[in-house]
């Protein structure tokens, strides 16, 4: 029913996400193409950023809550698993539920007061939490490792390829979960809230409860990303909680197209893969990166996804034209 429901938006989504199905299988094939662990690493990080961005998109894109402190959930679960793994030598598998729990709890703590706020107030409050937490971390250097952080985490699995598949599965799993959410009645409510909260309330729906739920869900997925990230990079440090980190999902979502899950893939591609491959012009890398963002935001405001769809449609129509001409 959800398919029939979200007219015309979700129908479009359905069509397009079919197309992304192809993309999915292409990604599955990567290990047969290359065995360069460096490329794997870049790809893994790419996937983790996708997860992170999707988790932000849920509240930022669909609900219109611009959280600028999303690194908090990311970083906290990373720190949790790091502490458990390095100090207590617990294996990642055991830490996983704990670190997710941790980020869920913090998400609840943050969300409870913030969901009542609006617009930029909310932005700033969400932004403030990570800073405070970082300060707390620095207050106990021997436990949280202050500016050096915690290093020497055990790796996720034996080989990079397995890591890659873990990240891959996590990403697409979460993608489909979120897609389910968005195409369900809840998704409708989310879009409605973004569109006009008064109307939703006058339908007798407790918007702040929904917001709270979504915030926690989002925090949870951010936590997943953080957990994996910690075990891939094998060092956890305060920069995981910094403004820069909180900006990442926002950047990714806006580049890819805000409020579109598949868009995050393109955004993340710019932020990780392209950014990484810009190392050849290292001196100007950041500059180019920022300019790229500017160009996209100023000239491609709808986000890459939209234009890529456009190109696909364009090509599609061309092909159809050709085949017709043949007949």
């Amino acid at each position: 029913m959800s398919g029939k429901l979200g007219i015309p938006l979700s129908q479009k989504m359905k069509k397009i996400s079919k197309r992304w199905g192809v993309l999915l299988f292409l990604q599955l094939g990567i290990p047969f193409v290359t065995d360069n662990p460096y490329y794997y690493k870049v790809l893994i990080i790419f996937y983790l950023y996708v997860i992170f961005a999707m988790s932000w998109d849920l509240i930022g894109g669909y609900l219109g809550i611009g959280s600028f402190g999303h690194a908090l959930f990311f970083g906290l679960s990373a720190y949790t698993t790091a502490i458990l793994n390095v100090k207590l030598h617990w294996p990642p598998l055991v830490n996983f539920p704990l670190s997710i729990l941790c980020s869920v709890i913090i998400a609840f703590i943050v969300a409870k007061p913030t969901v009542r706020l609006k617009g930029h107030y909310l932005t700033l409050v969400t932004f403030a939490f990570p800073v405070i937490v970082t300060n707390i971390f620095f207050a106990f250097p021997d436990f949280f490792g202050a500016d050096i952080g915690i290093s020497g985490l055990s790796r996720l699995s034996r080989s990079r390829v397995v890591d890659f598949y873990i990240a891959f599965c996590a990403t697409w799993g979460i993608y489909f979960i979120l897609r389910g959410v968005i195409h369900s009645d809840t998704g409708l409510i989310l879009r409605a809230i973004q569109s006009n909260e008064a109307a939703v309330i006058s339908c007798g729906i407790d918007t702040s409860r929904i917001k709270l739920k979504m915030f926690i869900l989002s925090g949870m997925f951010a936590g997943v990303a953080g957990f994996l990230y910690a075990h891939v990079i094998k060092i956890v440090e305060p920069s995981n909680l910094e403004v820069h980190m909180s900006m990442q999902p926002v950047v990714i979502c806006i580049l890819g197209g805000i409020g579109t899950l598949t868009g995050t893939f393109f955004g993340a591609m710019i932020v990780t893969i392209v950014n990484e491959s810009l190392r050849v012009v290292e001196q100007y890398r950041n500059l180019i990166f920022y300019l790229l963002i500017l160009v996209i935001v100023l000239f491609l405001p709808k986000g890459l996804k939209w234009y890529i769809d456009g190109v696909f449609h364009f090509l599609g129509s061309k092909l159809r034209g050709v085949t017709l001409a043949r007949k």
Partner: protein
Amino acid sequence: MRENNIKKTLLAARGLAKHFGGLAAIEDIHMEVEKGSMIGIIGPNGSGKTTLFNVMTGYLKATRGEVFYEGEKISGMRPFAIVNKGIARTFQVPQCCKQLTIRENIHLACIHRCPKNIIEEKTREFARIAKIESSLDTLATNVPIGYLRKTELAMALATNPQLILLDEPFSGLTDLECYELAAIIKGVREKITLVVIDHKLKHLMPIVEKVFVLNEGRLFFEGSPEEVARNPEIQRIYIGGEIK
């Protein structure tokens, strides 16, 4: 005129008051709405009609006084909770989700109220009642205000309420649309109690059976449409109101 003669009070306001800083938007309002009745609230601009609605439906917090619904105190409840109690409302400026289609808007109101499998037909049913089936799949941004008002009414109905508060349903509509809407309202009032605010007495008076007149935040007069029509004081207020 009505089958049940024992008139049960549905909604009651006791000494309701709302102050914005210094000025009193409404001041000690006492009013009762009987079950199954059809009430009109009139009054010049700034006489506190909308404020009264906002306070009753929990969008504003009352400075003084209480609101009772079926003998239960509802003042202080959050707006959505009051809706779930069974009081739906519409707004002066229609509050629909502009980025969603009419269908989705109505669907929104049906969620959690009926099993998923019948939501679709429910939606269509309410659309039929409100006479907007034709444009179910257009985005709310693209439909004229008349449709928005109907959509809003449909949404209000979809929350299966006992009481609907309509805030200036006729404003901004052509006479034709007004008659149409009035017909729709008449259609639904069999099951549902209605309270209507409006200036367009021409359309309001025929459908209501009791009228409250507000002036400067106080309940000024209360009686049948005929009495209101006869009362010279009200004429004066109204005209005065217009000129002021």
